[in-house]
């Protein structure tokens, strides 16, 4: 069998270079999307886990309370808990190097309690890293900088570095350079270390730690000690194993990463279509050879294996190529994904996206599997060829027409069934059935393809005839001549474009609703923050006194202090936003889904209550009148839920409370953003300039207008979908390869016919026009299918997958612009793709073409 495979299949692949190459590309691009995205997702989580691991150095338990922090008094309580061998506090803060814009993780370490200093090398080349340890511990501006970062900034021991901190930009003295070990290698090596007291002062966290790391004595189980700590601290702090932090983060980024992974799977699916198409064409063209093999005694099974083997060769090569391309793609896209995750969830700084041997093997197997799945039906058909009919020349060149109406009906059944399937509950919050129903509608649309192409032919024939006379007429006829092949090509195109339209629906629906929310609930005129234009995960929290004086700037009416803290709530990490609610509600209005018709004035402060986002309500089954129980330094505290409102601050969940309530409950006075209302008639630009010139310059703060704020939020949404868009483009490219493939096959299949046309007087340009028009109609068919399937997919995406993943309910908005673009891209790109086969058709040697059988 292997000899036959080598003699026939391998040689055939070598002979049909263009087709083999296109198929190889189709497979490898599909595989690369999956491998690339998996590597990216892994890199992001690995970066976080490595950071946790580097800093915690195998500690058994960690005590944390989100951004609000843990009071330092807890440390003594924990140290007394039986089974605790040691407990060391930690402060984690991200600051910005204003010179380079780099973000640096500055850790506050209790050098006296921490042994052996979280894996940091104490000596470098036999010399102590810090010459004068007392001076280091006593100086409020002493810092150790990781060697590689210091090198990149050409920093020497004894020099100073300016960093943007919650106290504004401050000069720090570099007391030593750290070897890249232990905690110093976290965060891509952009690490600084300070003494705990100095760090607490600098970062406005006096009396608080971000975390306490606990080592358990060998004789105790960490789980047992964990429960003791929970009891002893009487609080709602999170006490978990370091690896659980990774789990928590992976849960946070699950929706984003799953979305990316599924998008890449569609690219692979398009690859399967390309293989199917190519192999079907190969069988058609080689039916005589295959029939001869059958006549010579080759069994059906062997013919099947021969065809599948040929596809498998391409699959294996495509898999290998895909792994390499995927690796490159992951490297290129790492920054974009890391930015999106850093802005939306948790700050990560991956240093590289690696393809592990296991992932490489998976990529290879995916390539192989994709090829074999794609080749199964053509191989089956090849085995079913009748030697008698084929060798007698009675086999038709074109595949017999399918039954478009029946296929349409089956497709429709797919649509109908998708609705009850999509309504099934999501197991463990994972929208499995939403994705399944999306697949059902897309597959259903693919089955509707033949009838849709018939429709395109009927509608477009007059126009095509007007454009290209009889050539246009022939192009329209050719469109439905081999309906199976044309349908598969259109379906591949449909998958690529439907993904764009579906995701476009999500983005558009999201933006339309979010814009209404921003208008109603975020009415401030100016926003002042540090480190980022927005109070996202990348901004640097500020001490409240930095805002002193803002109110006195001419034109400023009111200022309120906004704190956006990530606080653990059950298995989620929700965003708790606090501000002076009376000021806030002077202009802001919540879009209430449950509760009183309006929340206003001092209602939040007076009641000590919260409003929560509908996604949090949906995820946890909460409603107005219930309580939100959060862990505070004084133990779990129940905040009455006054209302459930629309809010897009976090896909994990959101709670709004008065600043007074927050500070009382969590003891955290930091501010993420100062928001300003201007007096009526005040000149926005003048106030902004004044702010920038005063507090802005002094503390390194950004001042943005409401419009800029909204644009920035829109940019964040776009950024989150940037990779998805890139994969859509990849899927589209693969689909276009399918068009080139189909039309090349069409040229080969109709060589004699083209020869006849040329012989009886068809000009080369007319042959070119014939191919281009046919391709454009094929593209139009793909676009119509994509619109039908894409909008159905988009509807499920918005109404089911989105709700189950994020809990946000959005009204479905049709992305007309994306639909229009899909039509233009599909038709024009198909026309463009046809130029290669058109050129080949125009240049056919007429006499050789006429000699073709």
């Amino acid at each position, binding site marked *: 069998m292997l000899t036959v495979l080598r003699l026939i299949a391998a040689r055939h692949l070598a002979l049909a270079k263009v087709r083999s190459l296109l198929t190889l590309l189709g497979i490898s691009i599909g595989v690369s999307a999956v491998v690339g995205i998996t590597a990216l997702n892994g890199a992001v989580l690995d970066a976080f886990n490595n950071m946790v691991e580097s800093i915690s150095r195998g500690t058994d338990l960690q005590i944390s309370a989100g951004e609000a922090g843990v009071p330092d008094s807890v440390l003594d309580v924990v140290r007394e808990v039986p089974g605790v061998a040691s407990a060391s506090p930690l402060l984690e803060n991200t600051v910005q190097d204003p010179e380079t814009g780099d973000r640096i993780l500055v850790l506050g370490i209790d050098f006296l309690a921490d042994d052996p200093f979280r894996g940091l090398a104490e000596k470098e080349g036999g010399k102590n890293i810090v010459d004068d340890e007392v001076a280091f511990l006593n100086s409020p501006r002493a810092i150790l900088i990781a060697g590689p970062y210091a090198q990149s900034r050409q920093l020497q021991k004894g020099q100073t570095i300016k960093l943007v901190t919650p106290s504004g930009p401050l000069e720090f003295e570099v007391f030593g350079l750290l070897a890249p070990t232990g905690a110093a290698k976290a965060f891509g090596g952009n690490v600084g270390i300070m003494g705990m007291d100095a760090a607490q002062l600098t970062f406005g966290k006096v009396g608080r730690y971000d975390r306490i790391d606990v080592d358990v004595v060998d004789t105790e189980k960490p789980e047992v000690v964990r429960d003791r700590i929970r009891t002893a601290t009487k609080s709602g702090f999170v006490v978990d194993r370091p690896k659980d932090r990774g789990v928590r983060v992976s849960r946070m980024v699950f929706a984003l990463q799953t979305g990316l992974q599924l998008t890449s799977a569609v690219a692979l699916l398009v690859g399967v279509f390309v293989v199917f198409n190519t192999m079907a064409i190969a069988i058609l063209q080689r039916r005589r050879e295959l029939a001869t093999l059958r006549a010579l005694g080759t069994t059906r099974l062997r013919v099947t294996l021969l065809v599948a083997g040929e596809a498998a060769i391409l699959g294996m090569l495509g898999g290998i190529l895909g792994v390499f391309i995927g690796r490159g793609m992951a490297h290129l896209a790492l920054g974009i994904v890391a930015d999106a995750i850093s802005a939306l969830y948790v700050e990560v700084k991956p240093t590289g996206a690696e393809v592990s041997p296991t992932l490489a093997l998976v990529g290879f197997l995916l390539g192989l599997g994709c090829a074999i799945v794609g080749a199964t039906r053509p191989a089956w058909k090849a085995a079913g060829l009748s030697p008698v009919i084929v060798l007698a020349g009675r086999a038709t060149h074109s595949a017999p027409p399918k039954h478009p109406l029946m296929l349409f009906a089956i497709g429709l059944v797919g649509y109908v069934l998708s609705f009850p399937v999509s309504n099934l509950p999501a197991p463990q919050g994972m929208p499995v059935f939403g994705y399944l129903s999306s697949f059902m509608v897309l597959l259903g649309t693919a089955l509707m393809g033949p009838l849709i192409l018939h429709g395109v032919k009927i509608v477009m024939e007059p126009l095509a005839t007007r454009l290209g006379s009889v050539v246009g007429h022939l192009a329209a006829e050719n469109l439905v001549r081999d309906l199976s092949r044309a349908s598969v090509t259109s379906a591949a195109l449909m998958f690529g474009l439907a993904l764009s339209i579906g995701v476009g629906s999500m983005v558009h629906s999201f933006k339309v609703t979010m814009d209404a929310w921003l208008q109603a609930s975020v009415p401030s005129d100016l926003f002042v923050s540090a480190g980022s234009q927005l109070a996202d995960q990348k901004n640097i929290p500020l001490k409240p006194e930095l805002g002193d004086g803002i109110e006195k700037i001419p034109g400023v009416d009111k200022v309120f202090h906004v704190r956006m803290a990530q606080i653990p709530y059950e298995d989620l990490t929700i965003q708790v936003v606090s501000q002076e609610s009376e000021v806030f509600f002077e202009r802001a209005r919540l879009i209430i889904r449950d509760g009183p018709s309006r929340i206003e004035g001092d209602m939040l402060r007076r009641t000590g209550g919260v409003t929560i986002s509908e996604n949090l309500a949906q995820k946890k089954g909460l409603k107005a009148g219930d309580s939100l129980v959060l862990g505070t330094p004084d133990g779990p505290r129940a905040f009455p839920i006054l209302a459930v409102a629309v809010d897009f601050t976090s896909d994990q969940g959101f709670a709004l409370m008065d600043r007074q309530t927050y500070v009382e409950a969590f003891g955290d006075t930091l501010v993420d953003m100062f928001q300003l209302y201007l007096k009526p008639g005040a000149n926005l630009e003048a106030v902004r300039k004044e702010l920038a010139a005063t507090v802005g310059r002094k503390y390194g703060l950004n001042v943005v207008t409401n419009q800029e704020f909204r644009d920035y939020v829109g940019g964040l949404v776009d950024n989150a979908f940037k990779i998805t868009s890139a994969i859509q483009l990849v899927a589209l490219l693969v689909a276009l390869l399918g068009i080139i493939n189909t039309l090349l096959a069409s040229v080969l299949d109709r060589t004699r016919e083209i020869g006849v046309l040329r*012989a009886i*007087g068809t000009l080369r340009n007319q042959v070119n026009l014939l191919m281009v028009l046919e391709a454009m109609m094929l593209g139009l068919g793909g676009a119509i299918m994509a619109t039908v399937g894409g909008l159905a997919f988009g509807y499920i995406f918005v109404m089911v997958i989105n709700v189950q993943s994020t809990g946000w309910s959005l009204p479905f908005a049709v992305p007309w612009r994306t639909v229009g673009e899909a039509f233009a891209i599909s038709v024009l790109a198909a026309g463009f793709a046809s130029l290669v086969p058109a050129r080949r058709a125009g240049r056919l040697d007429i006499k050789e073409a*006429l000699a073709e059988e």
Partner: protein
Amino acid sequence: MGAPLPRKHLSDPTMSIIELRDVHRTYGEGHAAVRALRGVNLVVPPGQFVAIMGPSGSGKSTLLHMVGALDWPSSGDVILDGQPIAKLDDDALTRLRRDRIGFIFQFFNLLPTLTAIENVCLPALLAGKTLGDVSPKAKELLTRVGLGGRLNNKPSQMSGGEQQRVAIARALITDPPILLADEPTGNLDSKSGAEVLQLLREACDERRVAIVMVTHDANAALKADRQVNIKDGEVVSDVLHKSGQPAQVQ
């Protein structure tokens, strides 16, 4: 079959419509070179029906390709309807084929997606005429070949003989002075074959079309006015059937 349209060369009956002068055609180079034609001379006047015969590989098809403006000679001249084809570019050759030459193939080669009348109209439509312009004539031609009742049938709904008759009508739609037939009866039963040959004969007689027909069938060749035998790329005999005299003027 209707009155022939006036053509410039018919005003001078002594002028040839097809002329090959010392035509050589070699494919490939060196040891692999194949000399398909070796100094062929052939003059065909308007209205003459010429049968080309010869064993496989003798050069019949190559000769037909030359006369059909589908190939160029390696040396020598091919002059069709007064135009040396060596001086024409691809588009000009295509137009020459479209307007001045009709083709009939062994396997009919109708376009499967077009009806009989659309197939017949095709060359005229390619020249920019509309269906309205040419369909009366196409109907007339199809009626003349006995298919007046099958105008809207597609090739798959017709027998081989019927398809070949459609092909003859297609070849005549532009009133070409030259009609080339490559084994036109090779794929037909004897009755259909006879009908097709009769139609060709009539086209030649009534419309003064010069026909060059390649055939293996000696009986088919007898329908022609003249029989040219080729062997190894050379004309070995060239006789007029009625007189039995040599036809070629060297």
